[in-house]
């Protein structure tokens, strides 16, 4: 829910700021004798020089940006924006920590001895992973729906406060296929980080060590460059998303989508499998 709220607030803030910028540009253009209709009859040109980027027909440019930002408050656009924010900011941390906590719970209380005997380690570890996925998928869907409901309300409030009048908004530019594609990618990210979290929990059998390791890894510069798992996901996202809300993906390096998917799948499988295999080592139940 917090993510949905943050995403919606971000969209509204962006829509308001772009609308304000458009109004200022409109006033400045009026002083120069340029009307909005005149600007809309001419194309926008962007040129690059040694001094940087130059935008010609700034009035039309700001007008269209304001319309696009207002259009991003549509339910489908808001959902996609929230999913992108979840995928690359929230889910990695939440899923890994949740996976670690769930996987280590029975070791922490030593109930692993009873559960392993009555249920089998394989079933137990699979249940841990499924529990993480159910919780995170549920939260993900709730956030998505909250965005879908909250964004139009925010858009209405935005219009009521004087926003949008002459600008209006773009027609819904996000098709359902993009929503579903984004949801599928977010689900894949969820599965990946849940598997990594559960695997780390099983490997270390303690919650603190893997949690600290993840925080350190997550805040460090990508040591693996383009092959850093975070960058691999960002690269896949860049090639998957055609719509970007307030969340902008920044990738470093390029890896083919298929290669990235293979590496990420192998990494998740290896971590989870290693955790399960190490659970069979001698004295794994530590007394």
């Amino acid at each position, binding site marked *: 829910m917090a993510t949905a709220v943050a995403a919606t607030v971000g969209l509204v803030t962006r829509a308001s700021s772009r609308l304000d910028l458009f109004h200022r540009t409109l006033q400045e253009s009026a002083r120069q004798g340029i009307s909005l209709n005149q600007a809309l009859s001419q194309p926008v040109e962007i040129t690059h020089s040694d001094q940087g980027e130059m935008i010609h027909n700034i009035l039309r440019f700001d007008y269209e940006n304001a319309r696009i930002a207002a259009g991003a408050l549509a339910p489908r656009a808001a959902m996609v924006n929230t999913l992108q924010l979840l995928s690359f900011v929230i889910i990695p941390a939440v899923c890994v920590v949740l996976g670690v906590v769930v996987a280590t719970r029975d070791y922490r*209380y*030593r*109930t*692993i*001895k*009873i*559960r*392993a*005997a*009555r*249920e*089998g380690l394989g079933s137990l570890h699979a249940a841990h992973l499924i529990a993480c996925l159910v919780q995170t998928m549920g939260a993900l869907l709730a956030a998505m729906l909250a965005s879908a409901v909250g964004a139009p309300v925010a858009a209405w409030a935005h219009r009521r406060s004087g926003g949008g009048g002459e600008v209006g908004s773009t027609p819904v530019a996000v098709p359902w296929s993009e929503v579903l594609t984004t949801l599928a990618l977010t689900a894949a990210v969820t599965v990946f980080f849940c598997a990594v979290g559960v695997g780390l929990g099983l490997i270390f059998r303690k919650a603190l060590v893997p949690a600290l390791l993840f925080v350190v890894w997550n805040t460090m510069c990508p040591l693996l460059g383009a092959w850093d798992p975070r960058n691999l996901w960002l690269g896949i996202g860049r090639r998957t998303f055609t719509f970007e809300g307030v969340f902008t993906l920044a990738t470093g390096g390029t890896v083919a989508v298929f290669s990235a998917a293979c590496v990420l799948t192998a990494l998740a499988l290896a971590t989870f499998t290693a955790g399960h295999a190490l659970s*069979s080592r*001698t*004295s*794994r*139940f530590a*007394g």
Partner: protein
Amino acid sequence: MPGAEPLFGRRSGPSRAASESGRMRVISIESLSKHYHEPVLVEATHIFPSGSVTFVMGPNGAGKTTLFKCLLGLEGYSGTILFDGLPLRSVRHDVVPILDDTPFYPALSGRRNLDLLLGRRVDPQEADHAWGLGGRVDPRLLDRPVKGYSSGERKRLAICMALVSKARYLLMDEVASGLDLFTMDAVVAAIQLLAPDTTVVASGHQFDFYARVVDHVVALTDGTLRSVDLDDTSAVSLEATFRSLVAPHSG
């Protein structure tokens, strides 16, 4: 009441016959070997008879807990362990371990722990009856978090779990340690209730306790298991047998 079905589906009183279904619940171990840095179990072979209580005795470090871990599939081993001719994975839900440290989820109530560890919702009346077996226990405890239980109450909860699960194979490692007299009576009553249809394997050092329930004695020494034929299974006899096992191995 004649013909009435007991709450746990058992006939009360000792019976050494096979279960009502006619199924023998034998635990067979063949050439079981396990080593850590040195051998603990060496080609151990034994058959634990069904519907009886077998007491595994041995000095500290003999490998009793290791044996239990192998029986529960908690450790890798070489050899064969079968439950009624079946591997553990086929009878998991018929096996209940009671371990010395009686692990439970501390923040959850006893009743909730039973549900989670048995993988099903336990009938409240059944749980209450099992919990109150032998009397002298606060019935309200079952609804309180386990972290407030004493070690004896945790053992009682473990026994309660065995009763409500209708365990076919009950493995008890040091179940009697730390029990007061009344709790010990309750545990004895529970084992006697279960024994006709359950294969019980127990280990420990409280001979007064085991003398009240044991049918067979097995000695674990030098990594191997061997039956001990005793004319009586009194506490004195068990202690004397134990001393005779340890004496040749003392330094």
